[in-house]
């Protein structure tokens, strides 16, 4: 049997939500790393840290909306999940390394 796959059409009404949600993926993503960094270099108070993680959660949600409206395939969906977990860890790793460099050079 020949498999017939017609690439799913994006509904006309879905274009706007796609553009808006993809913009928010990056905006919320920037808030997450921005707040995280700002807390670490003591520009912001410590109690603001949960907001950083809140923004990470919002980033994931926006990416989910975008992906489902765009009808991304199964492979892409998995790649996006991995990307979000990587994104969660990224600033932690970066800050850890920065910290080590400073320790070694200044103390």
């Amino acid at each position, binding site marked *: 049997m*020949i498999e017939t*796959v017609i*690439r799913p059409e994006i509904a006309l009404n879905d274009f706007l939500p796609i553009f808006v949600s993809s913009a928010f993926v990056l905006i919320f993503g920037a808030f997450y790393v921005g707040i995280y960094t700002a807390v670490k270099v003591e520009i912001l108070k410590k109690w603001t840290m949960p907001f950083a993680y809140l923004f990470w959660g919002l980033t994931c949600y926006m990416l989910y909306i975008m992906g489902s409206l765009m009808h991304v395939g199964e492979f892409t969906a998995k790649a996006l999940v991995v990307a979000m977990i990587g994104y969660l860890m990224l600033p932690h790793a970066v800050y*850890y390394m920065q910290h*080590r460099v400073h*320790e070694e050079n200044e103390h």
Partner: protein
Amino acid sequence: MANKSVWSDNRFWQRSAAWVTGFASVLLIWLTFDTSAQISMGNDADLKNGVTKRVPGPTVINYKITYEMDTKRGHEVPVIGGKEKFFGRDDYSEEEAGALLHLGKLGSQAKNCMDCHTLLGNGAYYAPDLTKSWLDPAWGPEGSLQAMTGKNTREEAMAEFLQHPSQYPTHERMMPNLGITAEEAKGLVAFLKHMSSIDTNGFPRNFGKIQGAVHGK
């Protein structure tokens, strides 16, 4: 005092950068070899034997081209059909067709087409995309553009328009006169017909859907 860790060692990061860059470059070069083979131009024998090439040979101008939904791939693809006359002939040899295409491609660059139009979607956005312009119903038998130029075939209508664009305004925004000669116009139309036969993975989507003329079904 902390021990020297690998994570804070500049040499480690320097090497990582070199490795990552090298790896990505090698992968790109490898893919380039594969892609180059797939997008190299076909020849007359391929067309005669019905071998599908992503970029067919120049003698594709001897054939009828349509743009049809391929259910297996899930998007439209150009389909090369039976013979079709192009400026009254359907027996252009490989050399003749190649020379026309060469003239047309040179012309497309010499007249800066891409600084108003898009070709394969790349260029400027001041004028219509030309990727599948050969298939545009407007140039067809019932099309407004063919009627306007008073010609009886697609190719003659397009060539006439290219030589005297400002005589045939389709919008307040007009194409300027670029001094295109009759021979250059013929080459340009051959170039456009050839371009419409390139497999662009379904770009543009739904070409001519409303006018219903091209794939229609």
